[in-house]
């Protein structure tokens, strides 16, 4: 199996969505941008929060939230400090 070295971002592809995505009828255009902070920095998480904060949330848990937004996960580039989700539409 592929074992990235420590600290190396690792890519996971959601083949079910990414392989045959047809965006023929998708309307693109300017985006909406939302940024929600729960603490001033990664070293200022509250005692109740899990050590890794939001990064402790499994990818699958975000799926139903993203369904409400009308987005599907195409791939995830995860690293030690941030996980980057590439989404459909």
């Amino acid at each position, binding site marked *: 199996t592929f074992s990235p070295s420590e600290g190396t971002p690792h890519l996971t592809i959601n083949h079910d969505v990414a392989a045959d995505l047809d965006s023929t009828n998708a*309307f693109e255009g300017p985006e*909406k941008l939302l940024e929600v902070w729960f603490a001033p920095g990664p070293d200022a998480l509250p005692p109740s929060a899990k050590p890794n904060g939001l990064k402790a949330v499994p990818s699958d848990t975000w799926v139903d*939230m993203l369904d409400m937004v009308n987005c599907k996960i195409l791939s995830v*580039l995860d690293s030690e400090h*941030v996980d980057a989700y590439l989404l459909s539409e």
Partner: protein
Amino acid sequence: SSMFVFPHKLILKTCGTTTLLLGLHRLLRIAAEHAGFPFHNTQTLNDIHAAATPWRVFYSRKNFLFPHKQEGPHRSWKQEVKYLDDMFEGGSAYMVGKMNGDHWYLYITSPQSPFTPPRTPEERTPTGTAGRFKIPTGRAPCFNGGLESNDETLEILMTDLDPENAKKFYLENASAVASSRLSAYPPRDSRDAAAAATSAAASSSAGMDDLSGSTVTVKTASTEEDSVSIAADEMLDVFDNGSDSDLHGSYTPLSEHLDPECFTTEGHALGTVVSDVCGLSEVYPTSKYPDARIDSYLFSPCGFSANGIVPAPQQQQKPRDGNGDGGEDNNNETDNDNGSARSTHYFTVHVTPEPVCSFASFETNVPGGQNGRETSEVVEHVVDIFKPGRFSITLFEAKPNLAAAAAAAGDGLATGVGRSKRMEKIKGYRRIDRIVHDFDDYELVFRFFERE
């Protein structure tokens, strides 16, 4: 569309007719339920309304191009603000730029004093149900740790893209480029032993052996029947040897940027090619950001998205002193408060190439200057990729960041306005607007340019 998940914050940027704000409450619920962030709008997590209390919320967007195509609360800024106001206490909404031209909207909530005790739901409950579960904002849950260092966000929103440049973001054209590269490269069997050995060593060191036998299919521009299938390791070899300028111009090895699995679906494979061909891979070049990684996807029939993760460049380690604290390295680009971890930043790109509504966005929080590229360099590089007819630049910077930058520059400037003066002139463009918003703890500089 893209989402970035940090331990302490989440960034969600969505395109087209997505209904971003409809997912907001669920996001806050997940933060409380699955990440353990405190909530103050209900008494118990069993209440379906329970939602984590954000420290800050930012919502922004360019002016509407096709409001009638939008859904939910996204048909107008007024409706979006009402949706946010109904959810949060203490938000502020702004419009920046020309009302009768391109402008930009922002909604923010502000942090409150850490000494302000939270109000209970009963104290905040108005009569009736409206606002009953309204979410307070701005309470920093813990001040034992430091503020995030180098907090700045640069966003470039470009419209009326140059048609020739926009063609690169069509699947048909990208496939043709990919095919020409593959067909121009000699078959695996004809390579000399030295090249094969070099390639094998490179693949092995990058952990690519697992891809042996995997197949990448690249459709040519003419017909689907002309599709070319190659082994994934062979495609990687092409990328590894892509510095051949006869074939690829200013080509750089993509295997330095990318994880090998991205070659296993066409959208990701062609996205990788497009990232390289258009110059996106070089916005944060591996020469300055050796650990940067890009995940790209080319949509069918057109459209492009990419996410980049950019770990701060490693610094030369200074000799440790007797306390073992790593000496006096004050460069906060690389170290957090305990000096043990490197900060990691992101960038994201979205492209709609159709002439009737061509649009591209670039956003990053990679700090400008220091040991990497200046913000003005990044802007010029990105603008040159798309050559838009019009574009806006918004630079949102935390004031501690601005003060540090001014001090480092030694120029006595109190704000980053002077630091970013180089962005005032973009070759081939005329600056129309420059608007500064001075918030409590952030400064926003908005600029708007048109092609000369």
